[in-house]
């Protein structure tokens, strides 16, 4: 998996766990998200700068049990803008919140997923292109990936143009695909390999 998509996956896991926990220590967050401590530290520091979390200080109840006699610091989510992970771009040193309406970037695959969820039961590639503002080939590529991972199905008998149906509406977050075709669904936090559709 490329470095960029690994970074994006880590941040997704961290944001989802931060929202679930509300209050957390870095070690607990690291354990739940299963990413490196360095990434946890860097991401939380950026979220503090962006005003998303506050550092509450040392947790007194942990002081006694901690091996060096000092409890871990506790953080609290104070600005919950929504389900999409707030992204930190190291190269640009920039924090971007895709939940905000004025977000400067919009992921085309995410737009495709949102359009598919709106139509749901019955749609054509042309409808998705129109709503998600995608090019034809781009749209077909995304649909192919969703079909491969068991989210979308082509309706039979085959028609021209083909009609599709959303068969697994797992939630508002777009599934993430790696170059090898494996998929991680941030809604259910499940991973699976290509040609092994989620059950």
């Amino acid at each position, binding site marked *: 998996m490329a470095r960029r998509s690994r970074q994006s996956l880590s941040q997704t896991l961290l944001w989802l766990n931060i929202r679930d926990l509300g209050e957390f220590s870095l070690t607990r967050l690291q354990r739940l998200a299963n990413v490196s401590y360095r990434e946890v530290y860097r991401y939380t520091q950026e979220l503090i700068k962006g005003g998303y979390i506050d550092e509450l200080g040392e947790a007194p109840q942990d002081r006694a049990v901690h091996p060096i006699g000092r409890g871990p610091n506790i953080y609290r989510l104070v600005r919950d803008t929504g389900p999409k992970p707030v992204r930190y771009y190291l190269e640009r040193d920039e924090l971007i919140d895709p939940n905000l309406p004025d977000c400067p970037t919009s992921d085309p695959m995410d737009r495709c997923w949102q359009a598919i969820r*709106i139509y749901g039961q019955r749609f054509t590639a042309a409808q998705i292109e129109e*709503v998600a503002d995608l090019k034809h080939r781009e749209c077909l590529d995304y649909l192919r990936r969703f079909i491969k991972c068991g989210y979308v199905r082509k309706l039979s008998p085959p028609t021209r143009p083909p009609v599709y149906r959303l068969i697994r509406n797992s939630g508002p977050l777009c599934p993430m695909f790696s170059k090898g075709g494996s998929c991680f669904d941030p809604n259910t936090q499940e991973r699976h390999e290509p040609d092994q559709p989620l059950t």
Partner: protein
Amino acid sequence: MGLVFGFAGAGKTTATARTAVSAGALYLRCSPVWTPSGLLDDLAKELRVNTYRRNQATLRAVVDVLDQSRRAVFLDDCDQLFVCNEPLKLFESIRYIHDQANVPLLFVGQETFESKIRRWEQPQRRISEIIEFKPLSLDDAAAIAQARCEVEVTEDLLAQLHKECDGSCGRIVVGLSAIEKLGRQQEIKRVDLDLWKQSGLRFFLQMQRLRS
């Protein structure tokens, strides 16, 4: 609050869905079995907010996230709201969420929805923007044909299609795809009314007058 209304097939869903996707708005299709707690559950699911046993706690969580994100909420198929058991209660819940979160809210429904909502003072008073989707003109149909159809459609054929479509955007798109199919089959780049009549094809499976 805003209201978008028009007859079925006018293109309301496509237009509002496109706006919702590009603006990152929450898009919900109204359900005929919604209750205030059902509405809250659906909103919480879209925002991935925990639901609580007490509606008040879920409402607080939903309002907090909406307030922080400033995302607009689009409610499509609003005609279904009147099929629910207690529509007024539901409207009051929607109004409360709108007031508390202070986010734009858009109702999307058919003509009947517009006439029904006018009867109720509370929701009607808060609607500041109203957009009506009217039947498409021949010029609109020509613009769609130019943008969407791979073969050239002559003026007489387009006028015939427009007449049979009764201004429905959805039907014009279906009709154009039938014309396109004929063009592909016969490997021609231009289809006129005579050729269309000779083919014996129909724009739609069943002719039906949409508007009288």
